[in-house]
């Protein structure tokens, strides 16, 4: 085999691998979409994802509730009642904290920054029980505004975002801050008028990640939301699964699909920001 043939074989092989792995990654989701339009008899009769006799039964059933005052739509609204404040609070508090760490020197900064980063290694599981006890004392359990989920976001408690924003901030030239100071901006004005506009792509990335993570969060609502009508989509999907698994898969899968649809749409609209955001923390700096 000559060099040229060898190279062609290599290229073909690469595409074969990429496409095969791509199918493993995407097919389950495609199948899921198709399955919501299948009858329950057809569901597992074949491996194709296009329904033979498309039906809307799964979707119609997905709109019904399970005897309580909660259905997929009210649970979706509940989800975004805490996701949206959490996203906004996280981005603002993480930006301010990153500004403090990234742009100034003060006593103890090294130690505090190390402590902040060390929180990346503190598993949430260790904190669940004592936090629950603490929130219980605060009277936050089952709060109508989801205090245990929303409040920590006000205080930049997720080090990942602070770190990510510090890394991005490093690429904004310090000359700009100095020029702003000479023009009479105080440090807060420098942050809001100079840094924030330049940091916008990173702030958008942070917002997108927090949106995904807090929409997917299951443990938080499981612990802190007990009133049926306040439960978010993550809990509703679990409820639906427990009630219907074994006989109404099209309904369960339709409920599941609706619950992740906003995340999917956001991802497709902003995939480049995700990639930029995920690479910022580890590769630069």
């Amino acid at each position: 085999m000559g060099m040229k043939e060898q190279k062609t074989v290599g290229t073909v092989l690469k595409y074969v691998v990429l496409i095969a792995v791509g199918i493993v990654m995407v097919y389950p989701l495609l199948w899921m979409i198709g399955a919501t339009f299948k009858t329950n008899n057809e569901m597992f009769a074949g491996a194709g994802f296009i329904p033979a006799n498309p039906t809307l039964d799964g979707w119609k059933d997905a709109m019904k509730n399970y005897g309580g005052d909660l259905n997929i739509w009210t649970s979706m609204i509940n989800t975004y009642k805490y996701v949206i404040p959490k996203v906004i609070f996280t981005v603002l508090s993480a930006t301010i904290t990153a500004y403090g760490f990234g742009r100034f020197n003060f006593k103890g900064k090294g130690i505090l920054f190390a402590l902040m980063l060390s929180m990346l290694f503190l598993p949430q599981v260790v904190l669940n029980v004592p936090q629950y006890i603490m929130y219980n004392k605060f009277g936050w359990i089952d709060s109508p505004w989801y205090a245990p989920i929303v409040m920590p976001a006000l205080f930049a408690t997720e080090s990942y975002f602070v770190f990510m924003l510090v890394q991005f901030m490093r690429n904004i030239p310090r000359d700009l801050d100095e020029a702003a100071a000479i023009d009479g901006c105080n440090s807060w004005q420098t942050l809001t008028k100079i840094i924030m506009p330049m940091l916008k792509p990173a702030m958008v990335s942070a917002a997108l990640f927090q949106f995904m993570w807090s929409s997917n969060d299951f443990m938080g609502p499981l612990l802190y939301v007990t009133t049926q009508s306040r439960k978010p989509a993550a809990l509703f999907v679990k409820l639906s699964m427990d009630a219907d698994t074994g006989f109404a898969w099209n309904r369960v899968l339709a409920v599941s699909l609706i619950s992740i649809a906003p995340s999917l749409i956001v991802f497709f609209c902003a995939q480049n920001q995700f990639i930029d955001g995920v690479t910022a923390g580890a590769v630069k700096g």
Partner: protein
Amino acid sequence: MGNQGYQTAPAGALPRRKGKFAKFVEQNIGFIYIIPWIIGFLVFKVYPFGSSLVYSFTDFNLFKGIKEVGVMNYVDIFTDKKITTALITTVKYAFMTVPLKLIAALFIAYILNFKIKCLNLFRTAYYIPSILGGSVAIAVLWKALFRDEGLINTMLGYIGIQGPSWLSDTSYAIWIICLLRIWQFGSAMVLFLAALKGVPVDLYEAATIDGAGKWRQFFTITIPLITPVIFYNLITQIVQAFQEFNGPYIITQGGPRNSTTLVAMLVYNYGFKLNEMGMASAIAWVMFIAVGILSVLAFISQKYWVYYSD
């Protein structure tokens, strides 16, 4: 400017006479910006972390309070077979998923780094599971795929294989839970891809002239240059693997016969189902120490294998 906030540089623009306090504020303005974080750190991290250690030496129950103090929880942890099994299962889970996930991520990133057409399309396809994989919806989907009459067994049926009961067989169930995590290799892959793109092309050219083959180049140039990213991925994946909860809780409820009960689930069961919060705290602490030891080992090992260019 030394140790001061550098905002003090254009001092002429500021009012001339300042009190001691104003001066102090000015010099430590950076500290003021991190005050919210410090409050959050103390209230939501340090205090719970510390109190969890205290609770772990008690039989704290949310309704009954504390009746007994001592090391009994820790004794139980290492003598109760159910708990030791969960600890071992969790370590196994981490050691199965982390390397496989990283190898898959690096392998695919390596292929994508050749001049591949439709790079963005592939990258998107591989990344989607990472975005959605942690959700309840995907755990439900996983159950649909691996149930006895699920999609996987239907496919196996086409080639004449009678698939096993993946989720109710103790030898398979944990692998299905592992697979859900390995399937989410996209985020690690994106990092590897960015790192691979940063490897200077002239290094490969020089190596080719010296007669080094592709494999040799991969192990002597590529791998050493991306070790910082391998290290970052390794650490973050270990910490995450030890916390896995959704997969086993939703797909197998920890079964069959506790073969998929991971530590996070055990903490949940003790703390929030049985209300034995002292015991739950002790289990969480044992896990924290395990993760801590692994992280410290990884950090120590760094100097032997991680190559920092600057």
